[in-house]
């Protein structure tokens, strides 16, 4: 490799010198030695001046490597392209023939359209690949890399031009201009952010409350009817409930969804939390806000807000399917496994005059995932 022209290594500094060939390349018009591909030495290049009335020598061979193989391959490729064309026509036909509007119709249409489209493209690709590999003559050519760093004098020229421009603009010499320009651009740059203010109302204290109020009836979600304690009588029972009137209000339900669970007498525990949680609004004791061994917990997981609804009757665990936070329903839904850090808030419930389950008020703490302002 020592015959590469006297060029320095690609390095982090500019190029100190350049070969004659590089200078020639920058000139306009056909000038020898013109080196684009290949690495002839300078001596050879000077000898090999291409003459203007002679056609330049071929760089790529014109014929395939093996004509017999190429002939066979040509037929194969032609078949591939014909199949592709047929598949493409098949696609158009399938579109016209296969109707949707039923599940099985959709399936047939999807199969037909997808298969024809896929085959059309695949055959094109297969044909093109065989063409390149068997019909085109295989070549391996070499191209020179010039070092990416510019030549030193080019860099110097650039620096000079830049400096001249800077001087001409007087930017550097007039601090008043400079500073006032910068000062002018700051508010304009900040303005787009200001414009985003009305994307939303401020959170305020809205995260602290839900729509639950004293006396609101619990209605079975989906069925949209109230439920009495006498009806919800089977130990081991669980159902999702919503505050009356808010079943279809997603904004409300995202915090107000509740599950009620029926226990046998003696199963519920009302003593100190195993995990006290410190001086927080949750308190250190499991509150007894139940009625008839029915307890109501927020369905919104305190981890990141998925509905935590997987109730296992035998273990009394409420498992959230998203990240496996597990709450003990007999102990105030305190956390026993998983990433959640707070127990599910308990909704205080009682019965009204007709025996329907009603809320005694809102939750005593924010529902759902933790946030900075939550104490």
């Amino acid at each position, binding site marked *: 490799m020592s015959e590469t022209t006297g060029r320095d290594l690609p390095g982090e500094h500019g190029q100190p010198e350049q070969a004659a060939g590089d200078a020639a390349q920058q000139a306009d018009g056909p000038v020898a030695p013109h080196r684009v591909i290949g690495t002839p030495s300078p001596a050879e290049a000077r000898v090999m001046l291409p003459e203007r009335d002679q056609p330049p*020598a071929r760089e790529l061979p014109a014929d395939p490597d093996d004509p017999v193989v190429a002939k066979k391959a040509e037929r194969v490729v032609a078949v591939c392209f014909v199949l592709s064309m047929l598949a493409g026509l098949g696609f158009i036909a399938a579109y016209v023939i296969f109707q949707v509007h039923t599940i099985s119709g959709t399936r047939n249409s999807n199969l037909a359209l997808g298969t024809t489209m896929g085959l059309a493209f695949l055959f094109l*690709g297969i044909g093109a690949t065989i063409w390149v590999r068997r019909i085109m003559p295989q*070549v391996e050519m070499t191209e020179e890399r010039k070092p990416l760093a510019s030549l030193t004098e080019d860099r110097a020229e650039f620096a000079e031009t830049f400096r001249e421009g800077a001087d001409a603009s007087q930017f550097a010499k007039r601090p008043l201009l400079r500073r006032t320009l910068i000062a002018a651009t700051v508010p304009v740059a900040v303005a787009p952010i200001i414009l985003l203010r009305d994307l939303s109302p401020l959170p305020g204290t809205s995260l602290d409350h839900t729509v639950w109020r004293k006396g609101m009836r619990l209605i079975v979600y989906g069925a949209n009817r109230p439920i009495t304690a006498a009806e919800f009588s*089977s130990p081991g029972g669980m159902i*999702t409930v919503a505050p009356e009137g808010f079943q279809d209000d997603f904004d409300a339900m995202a915090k107000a969804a509740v599950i009620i669970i029926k226990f046998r007498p003696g199963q519920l525990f009302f003593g100190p939390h195993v995990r006290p949680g410190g001086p927080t609004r949750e308190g250190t004791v499991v509150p007894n806000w139940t009625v008839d061994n029915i307890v109501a917990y927020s369905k919104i997981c305190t981890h990141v807000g998925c509905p935590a609804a997987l109730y296992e009757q035998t273990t009394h665990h409420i498992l959230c*399917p998203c990240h496996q936070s597990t709450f003990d329903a007999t102990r105030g839904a305190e956390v026993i496994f998983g990433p959640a850090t707070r127990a599910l808030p308990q909704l205080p419930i009682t019965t009204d005059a007709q025996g329907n389950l009603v809320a005694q008020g809102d939750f005593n703490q924010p529902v759902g995932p933790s946030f900075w302002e939550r104490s």
Partner: protein
Amino acid sequence: MSWITARRRHPAAGYAVLLLGLLLVGAAYAVITGSGGTAAASSPTPANAAQIAEGRNIFEAECATCHGMFAQGQAGIAPSLIGVGAAAVDFQVSTGRMPAAENGAENVRKYPRLDTRQTHAVAAYMQSLGGGPAIPSAAEVSTSGANVGLGQQLFTADCAQCHNFVGAGGSLTYGKFAPPLTQSTPTQIYEAMLTGPEAMPVFNNTTILPSEKRDIIAYVTATRAEPNPGGVSLGRVGPVTEGLVAFLGLLLFMVLAALWITAKHGKRQVGPHGESES
């Protein structure tokens, strides 16, 4: 060179590595797939005296060893069946879960050991012992005229978190799982909701009304039967299997195509003037 590297060509080296690998995998498997707690069951419904007598015979032969001679249960082994009702027995026995083969985390659906007549007999006997929910009639589980949309809403609110959005099943804690609903008959679905087998909660007929149960059954049976218009369903469990297919199917295919396209096939060197050098 470290000690292990120096002995890499020892005749026993390969065997040692293989043995170590087997031991590690076996130990890991044994540790991981531990067993969990015991299962539990629930309620039935009654009929005539001959049936009840037959039922008692079957019970004493097949069930009493775990559940006790008088169905009172044994602590740590099997729960009491007093008051579970014929529906619970019908569910457990017709799905093959009972008689249970072993005391594990959960009983799985198997080929039933008792035929329908025997099942109804045991169910009648259980009903006679302590009452409880009866086996639903055909009319009660018929899905004609059912509101599939409401069924979908109820199912996703109260069932999908365990059983998955189409009833393909899901895992619970300690080795339990909510089974797929692909093989459950409408009667079995009704009974399961009504009696809350094992870890499943109880949805009695005043919590989810019979008509609503029928809507849910209609949703489950219609959805599991419907064809997959997009092609193979990949298990209907969601993006996990889709991601697997994307990597092991699509990306692998593309890599194979790339290998083919770029494979060297007798490439010859070409000099700057087209002369060949090989």
